[in-house]
């Protein structure tokens, strides 16, 4: 699918990609991780044909730089930072659909599935939307067409838990597609991928398989108990859509499967406060009455 052979990219004599070689197969969902400056974004830009470079890159035998249109038609891309486009959202959708030979309605429907009604923001300048709204639109444009490869640069960065869950659902529907997901942290995207590639100073320093997520679209019910009322905790779990009983000591909510590590990372900040963490069995489980529930802490 993708063959990257001895790719070199230098900025002002500083090599950012240093004879980097990598092959990505049709079934690979790759987490591209590494610290700032490791070369993740540069590699993505080379894959998108935006940078000239040494070495060769081929996507299904075609060089992105030379066969731009053919290659880019098959790639859905979500950038790390939403572009500060001043055009209205409707115009952006219309333009993207036109050049991608897609229907704007497909993108509108996907944005709706992520919780964004495009009709309400269609006339607003893209750059005036919130970070989450922008990200949803970019995801909708990337997925709202027939693509054969997804390149997502920190796709969940600006999304709230509910929208992330929506994104995971969409990606689960496209689990057959090869995917490159870039992130600073593996725990953000671990549930989405089956292979991890770590870059450091423009070279591959780790290339390993990771345990397949059994169901990217899985949702787990969760019950939390805390020792005392805590406003910071309430705010944090509130952002995950959790609700409490009258005493505000017992909290219930649902967590998307690929979000488990991120969620547990958040809970780690309140480990002194938590007395019980219960996660339901994986699958679309609505509550904790299932037999498979697991007591993790207490």
């Amino acid at each position, binding site marked *: 699918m993708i063959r990257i052979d001895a790719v070199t990219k230098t900025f002002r004599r500083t090599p950012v990609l240093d004879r980097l070689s990598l092959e990505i197969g049709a079934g690979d969902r790759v987490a591209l991780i590494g610290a700032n400056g490791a070369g993740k974004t540069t590699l993505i830009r080379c894959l998108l044909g935006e940078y000239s470079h040494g070495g060769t890159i081929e996507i299904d035998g075609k060089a992105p730089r030379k066969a731009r*249109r053919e290659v880019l038609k098959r790639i859905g891309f979500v950038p790390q930072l939403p572009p500060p486009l001043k055009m209205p959202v409707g115009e952006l959708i219309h*333009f993207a659909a*036109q*050049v991608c030979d897609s229907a704007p309605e497909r993108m509108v429907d996907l944005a709706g599935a992520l919780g964004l009604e495009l009709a309400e923001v269609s006339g607003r300048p893209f750059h005036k939307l919130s970070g989450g709204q922008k990200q949803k639109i970019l995801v909708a444009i990337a997925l709202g067409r027939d693509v054969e490869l997804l390149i997502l640069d920190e796709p969940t960065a600006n999304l709230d838990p509910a929208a992330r869950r929506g994104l995971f659902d969409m990606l689960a529907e496209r689990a057959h597609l090869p995917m490159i997901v870039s992130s600073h942290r593996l725990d953000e995207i671990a549930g989405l991928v089956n292979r991890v590639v770590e870059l450091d100073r423009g070279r591959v320093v780790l290339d390993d398989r990771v345990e397949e997520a059994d169901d990217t679209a899985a949702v787990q019910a969760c019950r939390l108990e805390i020792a005392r009322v805590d406003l910071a905790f309430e705010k944090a779990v509130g952002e995950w859509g959790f609700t409490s009983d009258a005493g505000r000591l017992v909290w219930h909510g649902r967590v998307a499967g690929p979000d488990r590590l991120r969620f547990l990372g958040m809970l780690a900040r309140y480990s002194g406060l938590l007395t019980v963490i219960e996660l339901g069995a994986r699958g679309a489980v609505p509550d904790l009455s299932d037999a498979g529930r697991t007591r993790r802490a207490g």
Partner: protein
Amino acid sequence: MANLIAAARLDIAESLRARWFIVYALVFGGLVAALFVFGLTESRVMGFTGLTRLLVTYIQLSMAILPVFVLVTTVRSLAGDRESGNFEYMLALPVPLSAWYWGRFVGRFVIVFLPVFLAMIGAVAYGGVKGADVPWLQIAFYTALLVSLTITFLGIGFLISSLARSVDIAQGAAFVIWLMLLLFLDLILLGVMVREQLPADFIVTLALINPLQVFRTGAMLLFDPQLVLLGPAAYVILDAFGRAGYIAWAFAYPAALGLAFAWLGYWRFQRSDLV
């Protein structure tokens, strides 16, 4: 072609929303209005006699204003789009680079040319209503000159945008180029060179290759081709070229120059890093 039209429409829509375009349109609309107010005041002695003088003044002022507007706004928006990350996203969509680049060129041409042209047509329409003779030949000639001038400076602007990696550098370069062209006009540096008795061929060559000078000479040509208005270098050139020859040169050379610069910009754009 559909992608080129889409890119052009995008640029037109983007420009129509921009503050610079409002200022730009107001400047040229206001210019025509001001010329009418002062022109009518002057002509009270003899009555409103025609549009020729007004159009010459308008075209001369356009020559001073249009290039700097075109250069600065073009490089600001193109280099700005690259710097801000807009190119990273838009050029990751499957739009051919040629359609993107030339579509924006066409869109920018429409947006820059139309206000200047419409202001001129507005002046002509108003004059016509007032009963003035409409100098159709002059209008056609000036329209062609404006097309040529717009293409020239768009070409320069697009080339600078392709070469410069930041807005500041692009804007600085655009301003310096405009200043250089302005300095090498007949009534400024070329006049000094004549006085200093530099070789005539050198001065004439400078006058012939400076698009602003070509435009200025062309604009004066139909009105009053006298030495006192044209300046010494232009007078010599006109004498050598003849009226028809110079008219052809005034249309063809700046437009060809602009297209050549734009093509160079495209060549550089598609071969270098896009973002």
